[in-house]
């Protein structure tokens, strides 16, 4: 039985429907460059599953495998940077009419690794979904509901941070990831019920920084001392939904929130954002820097749109390229060439409107920097490519 419909639309590379009510989307690293990375998707409440979608770029083939996540509805997935079979989830556990959100580390069954290239029509795979193998719980009842679990970027998969209510917990995993111990923790204190809504482990400074969002504030933490470094109060007019570190510029941070804005911060000067975009017409749920070309910024919003922006002015790449004058003999050519090489303005490259419902997650491919996926509430996953013209403009 097929679960995904391949509906190639005019502008998008691929889009197909999965379950409704999808939320998390995560991309793990892939070892083979020809293949785009596996995508992890989480379907709905009653029958939580993890869909691993493999997209063969050259043949335009999608293959999918489904793993059951018996423990409960998944709210957050992230893959281990070291072992592609290991992933962590935050899930709702319903017990005695109480809903608790927990965090756990899982291992995918070994069959998946070997048998990931089955054709999508293979009924066997769908009918007998396999269970994830639990490695350990990241649980501490004293620390409340986990909202997200973050792996150390580029780490060896032994350090994990979980954000639970108003606590940030740094866990040390054993090599086999079967045991987790809290090595340190930080607590957010203040008036009212403070709760971390999201967080990001910074890849710079030897991975010693963590950025978190709670309500309208963005906070930076030093993981060595577990103390707050900076706090951007009222970073957004309303709730901050997501954060992302610029992978190439160490002090730059992007944030998005319910005020429909995407803001770019230099954390050395937190009084004002470096740049602020207001293109969406509803809450912006997700913001992602491209891993290699950080001028490309992807945002997904509950106005059902995905917007790809080109933030040249604050990227790590210089404007245009230095033109070697010796190569240009003809004056006319020279002129034309110069013109085409004028620095690009910050601009929206394109707006993708394939989704019919709120887009909750967008993610760049970690293998192919020109590929990205977006997932909306109605279960539609859309894989898109950066427009060719822009790609060549950036590359050449």
């Amino acid at each position: 039985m097929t679960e995904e419909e391949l509906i190639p639309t005019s502008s998008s590379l691929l889009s197909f429907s999965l379950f409704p009510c999808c939320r998390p989307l995560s991309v793990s690293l892939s070892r083979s460059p020809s293949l785009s990375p596996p995508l992890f998707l989480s379907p709905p409440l009653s029958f939580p599953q993890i869909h691993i979608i493999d997209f063969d770029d050259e043949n335009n083939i999608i293959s999918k495998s489904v793993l059951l996540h018996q423990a409960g509805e998944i709210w957050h997935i992230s893959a281990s940077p070291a072992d592609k079979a290991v992933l962590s989830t935050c899930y709702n556990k319903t017990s005695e009419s109480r809903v608790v959100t927990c965090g756990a580390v899982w291992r995918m069954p070994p069959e998946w690794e070997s048998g990931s290239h089955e054709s999508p029509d293979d009924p066997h795979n769908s009918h007998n979904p396999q269970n994830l193998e639990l490695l350990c719980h990241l649980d501490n009842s004293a620390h409340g509901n986990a909202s997200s679990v973050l792996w150390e970027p580029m780490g060896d998969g032994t350090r994990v941070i979980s954000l639970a209510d108003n606590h940030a917990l740094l866990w040390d995993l054993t090599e086999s990831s079967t045991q987790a111990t809290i090595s340190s923790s930080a607590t957010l204190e203040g008036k009212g019920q403070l709760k971390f809504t999201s967080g990001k482990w910074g890849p710079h400074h030897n991975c010693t920084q963590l950025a978190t969002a709670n309500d309208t504030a963005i906070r930076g933490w030093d993981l060595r001392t577990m103390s707050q470094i900076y706090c951007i109060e009222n970073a957004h007019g309303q709730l901050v939904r997501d954060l992302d570190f610029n992978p190439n510029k160490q002090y730059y941070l992007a944030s998005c929130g319910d005020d429909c804005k995407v803001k770019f911060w230099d954390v050395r000067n937190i009084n004002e954002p470096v740049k602020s975009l207001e293109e969406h017409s509803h809450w912006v749920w997700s913001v992602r820097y491209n891993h290699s070309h950080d001028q490309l910024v992807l945002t997904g919003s509950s106005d059902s749109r995905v917007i790809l922006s080109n933030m040249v002015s604050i990227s790590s790449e210089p404007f245009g390229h230095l033109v070697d004058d010796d190569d240009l003999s003809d004056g006319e050519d020279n002129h034309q060439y110069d013109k085409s090489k004028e620095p690009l303005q910050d601009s929206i490259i394109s707006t993708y409107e394939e989704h019919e419902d709120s887009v909750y997650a967008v993610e760049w491919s970690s293998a192919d920097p020109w590929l990205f996926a977006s997932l909306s509430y109605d279960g539609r996953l859309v894989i898109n490519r950066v427009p060719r013209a822009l790609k060549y403009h950036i590359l050449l």
Partner: protein
Amino acid sequence: MTVRSFSCRFARKRRVHGMLKLYYGLNEEGKTVDQAESMDPCDINGPHFDPEVYLNKLRRECSLGELMDQETCMVKQIRSLDSDMQTLVYENYNKFISATDTIRKMKNDFKKMEDEMDCLSTNMASITDFSARISGTLQDQHAQITKLSGVHTLLRKLQFLFELPARLNKCLELQAYAQAVSSHRRARCVLQQYSHMPSFRGIQDDCHAIMDKLAQELRQKFRDGGSSAKDLSECVELLLQLDEPAEELCDKFLSHAQSRLEADLLGLEAETDILEFIDRGCNEFVSSLCLVIASYQELFVNRPQEGELASKNIPQMAIGKLHAFVDALATRYFSLVERRIQEEKSVGDNSLLVRALDRFHRRLQAVAKLLPGSAVPSQGTEIVVRAARERIKQYLAALQSFYLNSLTDVRQALAAPRLATGKDAPASLPELLSTLSASILNQIKSVLASVHLFTAKDITFSNKPYFKGEFCSHGVRESLVVNFIKFVCQSSRQFCESAGDRGGSTPPALLLLLSRLCLDYETSTITYILTLTDEQFLVQHHSPVTAVTALCGEAREAAQKLLNHYVKVQGLIISQMLRKSVETRDWVNTIEPRNVRAVMKRVVEDTTSIDVQVGLLYEEGVRKAHSSDSSKRTFSVYSSSRQQTRYAPSYTPSAPMDTNLLSNIHKLFSERVEIFSPVEFNKVSVLTGIIKISLKTFLECVRLRTFGRYGLQQIQVDCHYLQMYLWRFVSDENLVHFLLDEIVGSTAHRCLDPAPMEQSVIEVICERG
């Protein structure tokens, strides 16, 4: 008479005629035209008349009778001619006789006269003789008398010289310096000439001593300066006559004048009132300056040049000095004036300042007349221009602060009655708007009137090119009016930006009011103000000016932004309520719904009050025609959601396909909902925007929660309640249906035990609430 004798006589007569003609200078040429005719020998009056030919012709041509007639006629003519001639001869004869008599008489008279003349000449000869004799005798005495009178004159001169020192002394005592100098001047040359003689030398020395003393005294007087300008000028004149060096005198004179003028300037600094300041400046400083210039020019420049003074070219040197002097003093005066004008900050009454400036400018014209090449008047004009510019800036600032103050007033008015009575506040919104716009307009008008004083006809500087052109177009129109309108738009827009971060520090009512204000500006006020300005100032646009349309565009943009922001803020307030209500509740363990939650009632109440508020300022707007029975519509809406929820229990991996398909098909036929989209300037559009934002928030919050069975039912009840009341506010009720449908649908998806409530029960609960 025979023909021959006739012709002979005729020829003679003709000869006489010719001689007469010759005598009177009438030659034949005058009759050249006749000559051709009179060449005819038959013409009896012609000069070439030939009787023979004529007779032959007559004899040949005429009958006898005719000949007889001709003859009679001819005889008659001859007779008349003869008688004429006779009268002529008689007349002339008489005249000739009388002329002969006269000549004879004259001859006798002349003879008598000749005798008398002879007698006269002899008498004259004797007179001459006598006279020669007399003068010969008197010659000696005459010479003596001449000599004596010469000596007398000399003696008198000598006496004058000898008396001179005494006289000078006396003059000195009497302080009649002018007389002393003129006396000395008369004697000076003589004394100089005869200085080799000891006695004269003595006199000269005495005189010198006295004159030195006098000069000393004059100088003293000059230096003392207590004397009036007239005295002073007299002094200078005398000194000049005493050969004092002119340059030194100029310097002294000027330094003297300077000290007095500086005293005036010092006195000025104490003055407080601007008009008095300028008055005093004009009356004391400028008029004394004019006096100084006038007397100086009279003394040094315009005096007739004589003797060796002419060679020194005093006027040129003097003028140069004067210019330097006037410039230096004027600069100080101007700096004082400018400082004083800058202190004039109160914008209440412009007429004082304008009058002061006018007086200032007018008085400087006197200097211009006195000293044509001077830069002083143009500098003065520049000061006036600068003052006018400064004034415009001040007025702009005053307008801006007035605007901000009135905004603060409005803010307070919005805040205060709400606390006091609660009911009056919304009612006063249109009043507030009208008072605000009227007071701003009045303020602009009064400012324009004040500024208009600068260009009044009776003001001397109003006809300067600056005040005719640049002041009107660039100064008043651009810097003042246009800038103010821009400021209004800009400050309004700032409300949107600053409030965005702090989350509604501006009261929403103010946003609404400002938005309406800007819209009014766009539609009428800007055009009115600019037309008013153009009319009042007769602006001729030499340089490009801001077009009315550009300003209107700006105002409209501001109005749009404000209204959008209003929608956002109000939407946010309701959203916050909804969000809190969803987030704080434990939806899994809630009890069976018996009531509509209070929050929903609050939402409807708030929406109604917003509706009233917006309705006060904006028109109704168009809404799509809705079905006659809107509450019935709910059945169909919920039937679809019920369908979805019916699928929910059989939620197997294969099931989502169906539900998904269903919701997707549903969405295919409904338009994409723009949540934060620009609104139109009418009530319905504003309310639609606010409700969209609120419901979308509700939807997103619901999707983040997990529900129990009763949780779902509570949401159903709440949504039905909203459905009952919200449709009337929006332009397209399907929008509300769609969003509420989505909310219930999403809740069903997020429900652990999706068992929906019966529609009838829901209705009962809602109607009871």
